[in-house]
């Protein structure tokens, strides 16, 4: 279970990083990040994966890297102690890595899914300038003087990273770099301050690799000064190691050697070889410790550089964020238009019906109905005159566009705005181009279809809501007996009181005094009507506000969400980008934990001492 777990984590992580790398390669301005991402995914596949799988630390990997023509193959020969690699003056001759196995018993070659990425191992021997995604494995012939100090190492001769052709094969260099436990960085007297190799050296240090620098082709007299200069100029500006320490990078100089020394590394050139071997062996005191360091540093590099690696995705996502904002701004505009064009002028005339019913409700029921009718008859002149005056004074309503028209034209406005925006920005980022393309392919129509669907639901809800608001207004009065009888009784008492008062004060009343009765009754009714009207208006305002909310809830928000997420759906790169952004940091953390647990478990019992001798003293010439 544990096994499968870490396998899937490693597999997914390297997949994601590989996908991100590809994503960068497709965008010219991001291509520079592709190399770093390749290193990250290769670290996962080549180093961390096999370690978690429990593969033995032996053999350690020693990679020789450097700019074209700096003398990598010569250095490989010196490390091997024999002429194994063809050192020739054609710059950038080596196009794929070659592994040199030490003489002696064969070890278990690392086997792991995704090991070395797309690179295949070729069995038959081919010249190093075969420009394919392959690596080959050769064996170093047995040394004459027996003990091989690098018996636990596989020696890798790598291609360069400086020639114009290197863009095609720098990935292979990255694969081996990720694999390596110790790296020999070769720089010639010409190259040591070159930008491209120096950047690469920085990358090695950030990834926490143990690095040994060999300065080649140095004039014997300049050697000491040059090493000092190099330490100051180049090493002084190195970044920190993943664990925060300042990297200690040993530097040795290889002078411009005569042919005799160059072709006989174990004999005439041995003094240079010894110096180099010393430094290399210091970097790897025991296999387990060296491998543990490599893996820990790799995991730590991934967790510290992870953010930086994902920056490429962030730029895209920032653009994505911008699109979302544009969509939601459009949504706000849509709602604003609805509010102004429709709601502000809408009177909800269906609501008047409820108002009238409320007025009826406060009339007396049953036997009292008779009295009410008398009052109604008494108020007739007042009613007529009131209607005449209000007809003169009240203006007709503003004629509104229909709700549907307003909604549809607001939607068109919204979509047009998005489309125009995407067209305007189409040149700045592929996402906008994708959106503009989507609009060409009928995105607007899809949005309209979606709107029609939502609209049906909305229409139902809005009718129901209006009815409910009216019913509720009635219900508050109906179901509250105190209020209901208070209103009814109040009005009734007021009517009676006025009639009684008129009769009392004008007793015996003449006919014109009796005219005061309808006047008074009308007055009380007007008061009651004003109260009911006030309640109805308040309810109307509530309905208006609720309608606004309803539009936001059931129409605009679903469409806005759908539009905002559109670029990230349908298997587009944004979908994957989002997944990658959330998944990668998580997986890196998981992996780091697993690595540190495993390292802890592996280090305390150093019970199995390395079978092969790891001589602290290098062999003499």
């Amino acid at each position: 279970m544990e096994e499968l777990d870490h396998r899937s984590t490693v597999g997914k992580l390297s997949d994601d990083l590989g996908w991100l790398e590809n994503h960068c390669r497709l965008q010219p301005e991001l291509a520079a990040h592709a190399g770093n991402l390749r290193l990250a995914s290769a670290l996962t596949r080549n180093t961390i994966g096999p370690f978690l799988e429990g593969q033995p630390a032996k053999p350690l990997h020693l990679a020789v890297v450097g700019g074209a023509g700096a003398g990598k193959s010569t250095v490989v020969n010196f490390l091997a102690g024999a002429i194994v690699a063809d050192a020739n003056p054609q710059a950038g001759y080596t196009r794929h890595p070659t592994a040199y196995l030490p003489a002696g018993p064969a070890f278990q070659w690392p086997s792991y899914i995704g090991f070395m990425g797309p690179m295949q191992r070729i069995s038959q021997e081919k010249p190093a300038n075969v420009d394919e995604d392959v690596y080959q494995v050769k064996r170093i012939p047995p040394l004459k003087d027996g003990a091989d100090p690098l018996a636990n190492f596989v020696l890798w001769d790598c291609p360069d990273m400086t020639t114009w052709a290197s863009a095609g094969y720098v990935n292979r260099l990255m694969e081996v770099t990720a694999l390596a436990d110790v790296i020999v960085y070769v720089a010639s007297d010409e190259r040591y301050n070159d930008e491209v190799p120096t950047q690469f050296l920085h990358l090695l240090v950030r990834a926490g690799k143990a690095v040994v620098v060999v300065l080649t082709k140095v004039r014997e007299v300049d050697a000491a000064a040059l090493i000092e200069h190099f330490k100051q100029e180049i090493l002084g500006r190195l970044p920190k190691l993943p664990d925060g320490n300042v990297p200690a990078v040993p530097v040795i100089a290889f002078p411009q050697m005569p042919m005799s020394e160059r072709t006989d590394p174990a004999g005439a050139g041995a003094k240079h070889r010894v110096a180099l071997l010393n430094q290399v062996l210091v970097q790897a005191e025991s296999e387990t410790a060296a491998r543990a360091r490599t893996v820990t540093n790799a995991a730590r590099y991934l967790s510290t550089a992870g953010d930086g690696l994902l920056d490429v995705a962030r730029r895209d996502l920032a653009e994505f964020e911008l699109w979302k904002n544009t969509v939601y701004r459009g949504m706000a505009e849509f709602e604003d238009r609805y509010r102004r064009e429709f709601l502000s002028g809408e009177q909800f005339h269906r609501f008047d019906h409820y108002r009238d019913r409320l007025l009826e409700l406060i009339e007396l029921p049953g036997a009292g109905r008779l009295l009410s009718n008398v009052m109604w008859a008494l108020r007739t002149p007042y009613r007529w005159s009131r209607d005449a005056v209000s007809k003169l004074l009240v203006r007709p309503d503003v004629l509104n566009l229909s709700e549907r028209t307003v909604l549809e034209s607001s939607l068109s406005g919204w979509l047009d705005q998005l489309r125009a925006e995407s067209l305007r920005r189409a040149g700045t980022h592929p996402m906008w181009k994708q959106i503009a393309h989507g609009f060409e392919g009928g995105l607007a129509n899809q949005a309209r279809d979606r709107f029609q669907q939502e609209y049906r639901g909305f229409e139902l809800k809005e009718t129901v809501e209006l009815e409910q608001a009216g019913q509720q207004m009635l219900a508050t009065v109906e179901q509250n007996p105190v209020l209901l009888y208070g209103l009814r009784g109040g009005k009734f008492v007021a009517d009676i009181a006025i009639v009684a008062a008129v009769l009392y004060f004008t007793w015996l009343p003449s006919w014109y005094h009796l005219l005061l009765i309808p006047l008074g009754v009308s007055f009380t009714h007007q008061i009651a009507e004003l109260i009911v009207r006030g309640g109805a208006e308040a309810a109307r305002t509530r309905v208006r506000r609720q309608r606004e909310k309803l539009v936001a809830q059931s129409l605009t928000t679903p469409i806005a969400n759908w539009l905002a997420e559109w670029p990230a759906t349908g298997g587009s790169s944004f979908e994957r980008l989002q997944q990658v952004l959330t998944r990668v940091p998580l997986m890196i953390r998981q992996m780091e934990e697993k690595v540190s647990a495993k390292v802890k478990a592996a280090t305390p019992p150093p019970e199995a001492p390395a079978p092969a001798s790891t001589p602290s003293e290098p062999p003499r010439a």
Partner: protein
Amino acid sequence: MNEHDEAAPMTVAAEPPAPLLRTLAPLLRGLERQFRGWLDARRKFPLTMIQRAELEGMADDLRRQGEALDVEKPLLVIMLMGGTGVGKSTLLNALSGAPIAQAAFTRPTTRDPVVYFHHSIRSERLDPALRLCRLAQHDRPGLEQKIIVDTPDLDSNDLANREKLIALLPIADIVLYVGSQEKYHDKLGWDLFKEQRRRRAFAFVLNKWDRCVTTGELGLRPDEDLLADLKSEGFEKPLLFRTNAQAWLDSAKKAGTTVGLPPKPEDLPEGEQFPLLRNWLELGLTRLEIEAVKARGVGQLLVSLSRAIDGVRPPDLTAEAEKVQQSWSGTLGEEAAVQADVLVGTLEPYRTEVEHHFSVEDQQRFRGLMGAYLRLSTRMKYAGSSLRDRIPLAGRILPGGRVETPVEWNLGAFVQECARSAGERALDQRSTALVNRLLVEGDQRGFPLTLLHDPTHTVGRLDWRERITRSVIEALAEVEQICTNPRGWRKWVRSTLGLLANTLPEISLVATAGYVLYDFFVNSVVPDTFRIALIAIVPLVVIVIFHLLIVLLLPVRWPAIRGEFHKRLGARLTQEFERAYLPIPSDLALALVEERSQVDRLVAETKEVNDWLAVRQQAAQVAELYGN
């Protein structure tokens, strides 16, 4: 190059070379002026920043070339270019026989360019960019017209060096691409070479030749490798010098020679060609070659110039503009109809005022009794419309009365108020939406949105309320005109009614009064109250009948006006929209056609100069400096 090849064109071209370059100078200046003018002109078709920078650079080159050629003896600038440590400075030192350029093991060594030139050349004649470099003078007649420039590297961690080099490169006539065994095809240098190879002459040096000859079992020798690379770049027979400059410099130091070729160093590897390089610089590049290189440089510049200008030729959008206009006029019509709807809806609360206005206008033509009656009845009928305005706060309390109307009926102010209210409610948003709609439609018809964007938005930001107000007033006036001056049968009805209504009441009054008087005097019937009342009643009845007829046959009720008003307003708005928006695409297309023809003119002129040059230049001797 052998003697005969060189001699043959010499005799023919002995005359032209000197005037050639002198004639070219004013031509280039003229071209540069035009080019500058074109570049600085305001344009509808925008250049991207990169395009503009490229074109600006070319304009500078053109000016520089023009100035450099306008002299008795044009100067040839040979520039060393290569990575750090390949031995550019050593090469210059070896060529000069003196340590004029700093050479050491620290990389990068050269930070400031070194200019090596003949003492007869006054430093004012140097290009301004060169005057700021370290200057080293010499007195070697062979190099009299040549300036050799040692430049900083292009690949070290010191990025400022690369910028210096790139700033200097445009001055170079011949670039001496210096490579070493390690760096002869490094990406940085090679990219720069590929970028510049169409712009100037290239010769190649493979320095540190001693490191190249130690062949391994496999792989190509660097010079073969480089030649293969160059061949794939189109240099069939490039000038490639294999040198070991350090050895020659050491030898010169040992022998103490500062002038002339130092004694040949002892352990020189086979195939070393430093003397050949030196010879080529001193003797191979004669005056004829210099002029050929110069002329060819100008030719290359002109070719890349015309290519660059051609690349920014605006498209011909005349056909698209027409299509866009067609689709726009449909959209604008629809939009005008909707906006008219909104405006008519906004006028709805003021129907009584509008009716009142129309009635008053219509009644102007009635005189006498009829006129007096109508004015009185109108005043009574529309009492509310002025009453409402006289009730303080009525606008706020009464529903529907949100818009404050002026107390005095003032059509202009009233309509303005309506347009403001409609604008706030709907029209402002609609105008913005309209702009987007138009842009999208334009893009669908193949008109790039980037071009339409700015002018359309500018139109969208115009004061549309003011225009709409004007349209409403005009439409109202038109409707009024129609109401007061109808056509067809209405005209007859109207004039007949008018004539009768203006006369009949008076006639009936006189007739009734006459009848009563006649009865009194002739028949001696003393009129009773009813008879006397008849004098007033009969004309009144007549007037009322006419009033009814007017109301029935010539209605000025709002619903009757509204349809007509809506139609007129829609037409007005359509007209207004079309006047503002429709010319945009065609104007743009026209401007682009004009810009296109400017580009064509420039390209044609460039080509003319280039053709003139091609006829006159004899570049046979320098062909190997240029690939295909």
